């Protein structure tokens, strides 16, 4: 694992945006109180702290990060955010860097209907919009920094929005900010479909109304035809909640299904979706790193891109995990994906996660051509439309519906 890993002393994190991102996610940031009085942006953040506990920053090299700043543990953070003459400076113990703040959307307090505020069901991180149709609690636990910007949470909510309301909501968001990627999560995983049929009407409506990439977060279904349907209905990428593949021992990852069966289903998904668009969370924190590495190897071996997540920041604190301990795992994901020739262009500029392509910061790699292409595809005016357009064209070419 260490052969292509580039360790960096704690004091040099400012020289490496990847380390800085990871460290900020784990430790949070202290915000200079004067900013709340002077800065309009931060006032907006203060308006709805319960809705969005994180502060989105853009670090050097266009590295987006969602940083906890309200939680109690942040008072011990080595990082402090200051503002002077419209510029924001992030300072550490010895170094500092100029950063940008992603403006906090003004619509979080607006209502979708009489019962639901936009902030309860949607979160925006730049062009990345996460919708949780299961509602407030799921969204909070899924993306809110208080329970871990790197964490996943079980989908336990229930439907709170109709299809028309979701389309109206996205229209409202689009008035204020461009949307590149929409993430849609199933709120329940009952049945053999892994939850995809619940969100099918939403997927179809969103794809019919907006030219965006759509990432769905569901459980792995029991049958291959459901994977085919997921692609056909409009999902551009899927992130499967697999939990732990290797650590279960005699315990299968899903009732009635072995690891081999899971890998078989994933292989099928990889053959259906575009290269690099099948993702899976791999949890870390409470289990040995060796198991995590084994999972990464298994997934990259079948060309599934692993997304490393921790089981809540509380676990990180309890275990005393540090950036220096976690960084090699992210580097390992990048190297394994590179060895397996998995495309890492999809969803690569995500503030709440360390994207696999960002693992390059930990391995010391600098793929200039890849990054140039990535920057093009993520450019707001042309690239985003091209990415979504190509994905739609690909689907149109490959999907056929035949009568039974």
């Amino acid at each position, binding site marked *: 694992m260490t052969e292509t890993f580039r360790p960096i002393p704690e004091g040099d994190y400012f020289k490496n945006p990847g380390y800085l991102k990871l460290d900020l996610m784990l430790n949070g940031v202290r915000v200079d109180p004067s900013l709340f009085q002077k800065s309009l942006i931060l006032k907006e953040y203060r308006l709805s702290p319960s809705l969005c506990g994180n502060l989105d920053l853009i670090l050097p090299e266009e590295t987006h990060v969602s940083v906890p700043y309200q939680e109690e543990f942040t008072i011990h953070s080595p990082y402090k955010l200051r503002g002077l003459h419209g510029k924001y400076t992030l300072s550490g113990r010895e170094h500092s860097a100029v950063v940008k703040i992603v403006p906090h959307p003004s619509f979080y307090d607006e209502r979708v209907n009489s019962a639901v505020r936009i902030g309860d069901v949607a979160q925006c991180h730049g062009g990345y919009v996460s919708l949780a149709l299961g509602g407030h609690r799921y969204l909070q636990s899924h993306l809110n920094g208080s329970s871990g910007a790197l964490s996943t949470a079980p989908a336990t909510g229930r439907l709170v929005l109709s299809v028309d309301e979701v389309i109206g909501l996205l229209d409202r968001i689009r008035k204020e900010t461009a949307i590149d990627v929409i993430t849609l999560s199933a709120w329940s995983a009952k049945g053999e479909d892994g939850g995809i049929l619940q969100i099918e009407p939403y997927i179809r409506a969103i794809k019919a109304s907006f030219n965006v990439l759509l990432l769905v977060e569901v459980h792995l279904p029991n049958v291959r*035809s459901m994977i*085919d*349907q997921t*692609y*056909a209905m409009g999902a551009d990428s899927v992130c499967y909640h697999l939990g732990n593949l290797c650590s279960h021992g005699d315990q299968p990852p899903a009732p009635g299904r072995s690891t081999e069966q899971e890998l078989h289903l994933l292989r099928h998904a990889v*053959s*259906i979706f575009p290269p690099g668009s099948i993702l899976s969370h791999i949890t870390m924190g409470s289990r040995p790193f060796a198991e995590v590495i084994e999972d990464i190897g298994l997934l990259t071996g079948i060309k599934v891109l692993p997304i490393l997540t921790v089981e809540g920041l509380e676990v990180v604190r309890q275990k005393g995990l540090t950036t220096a301990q976690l960084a090699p795992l992210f580097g390992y994901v990048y190297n394994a994906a590179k060895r397996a020739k998995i495309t890492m262009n999809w969803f690569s500029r995500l503030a709440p996660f360390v994207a696999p392509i960002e693992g390059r910061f930990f391995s010391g790699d600098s793929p200039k051509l890849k990054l140039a292409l990535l920057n093009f595809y993520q450019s707001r005016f042309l690239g985003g439309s091209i990415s979504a357009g190509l994905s739609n064209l*690909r689907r149109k*070419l*490959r*999907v*056929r*519906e*035949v*009568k*039974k």
Partner: protein
Amino acid sequence: MTDSRVIIDRRPITVVFISRTYRFFLLLLLGFAFYAFVSAPPWAGLSPEGYKAVGAFFLCLILWVTQLIPLAITGLLAVAIVPLLGIMPAKQAFSYFGNDAVFFILGAFILSAAILKTGLSTRLALLFLKGGVRSPRQLIWRILVSSAFLSCLMPEHAVAAFFLPIILEMARALEYEPFGGSYGRTLFLAMAWGCIIGGVVTFLGGGRAPLALGILKELTDQDIGFLDWMKTTVVLAVPMLGVAFVVLTFYFRIDVESVEGINRALEARRKKLGMTSWGEKWVLLILLLAVYFWMFHGLKAGLANIAIAAVVILFTFKVVSWKDVEEYVNWGIILMYGGAICLGRAMDSSGLIEWIAQKFLHYPEIIATHLGNWFGIGVPATYVLFVLLSLVALFLTEMMSNSAVVAVLLPVAIGLAHSYQLDPRLMAYVVALPAGLAFLLPISTPAVALAYSSGYLRIKDILIPGLMMNIIAWLLLVLVMKFWWPYLGMRY
């Protein structure tokens, strides 16, 4: 989503892209090539209209062969492109949809719709198999004859469509699995070949003969009677049935000893049909009357008029509804016929046919001379012309629609007939008969395609005996032209 399922093409995306879009790019290429061709100066000796008609002819020929767009749409394109290129006025071009042949085939389709709708088709098929089949060989013969006979009364593809479930039932009664038994394969091919052979006998067996008649009428103002056509074709069809029987029984091993199971299955099916309904009786009566009038009063009363009168009577007695007609009639073929007749007329009026005839006039003479010099065979050049044209038609019909062969070849053949001072009606036989004898490939004719779709036939089961049938059919046709036609007074 409930009544359909999703299929994802998992081939590499470049392969998928090419396979899904090549038609568009080919059409684009064809469009550019066509534009470049018609923009160029005309060939020597050919009028500008004639030169543009060459472009329209090849455009339609390529589209009919490749089927990049449906046959019917190519027919519509033919009607539109002729006035667009200035070959003839639009009013005239569109008037060819009013040709007698178009309405005759429409009437014939409506009649066959009534036969199918009332279930008379199945009853007639079972009638031929009534009385118990005694041996496997006899069953093959009965299937051949019954499908051939019914194809004399209605389009061969319709006969194949209602015969297929009956043959499937027979195969199941013999406990055959798909690809399972040699005898099972024989039954499917007997059905398909019977349809093909019967389909050439009358004007009702398919679209080729009525289209040939339409083009002939439009270009020469001459006609062929229903009975006259049959006199020429029966002599070819009857020995063809015998040949088909011999090829089937010798090529395929008969691996069953008894057909008792089939008899039981047919009896059960017959019982299921119940008593003959009034609708079936009316349709049979009207059909027999129509055939009588076509045979003995067709030239005087007009084939199309008789067909339409029969249809009016059908509706008078409410035997079929308009909805049934909409469902069963192949409207695309009717559109194609209008376009094909228009194209043929455009080739004629622009002087193209005469130009082609002049260009190819000497080849049959040269071949006839060589045959005489080298082999001592003395045949007239006109006979060589017939042999060559029938061979070309037989070859083309394996690759493209039977009717499309008539559409592209008959106008040229009629032009050659004028140059040789032959009776142009002979050319309708020379082109339309071999155009119907497509045994070789599943794509050649709907009857073989349906038999192949059963899953019981492998491609080699069709190819090898089909090739044998094609060669024998052509040889028989050549013999019929040589010995039977002069006997009927068809001089050349």
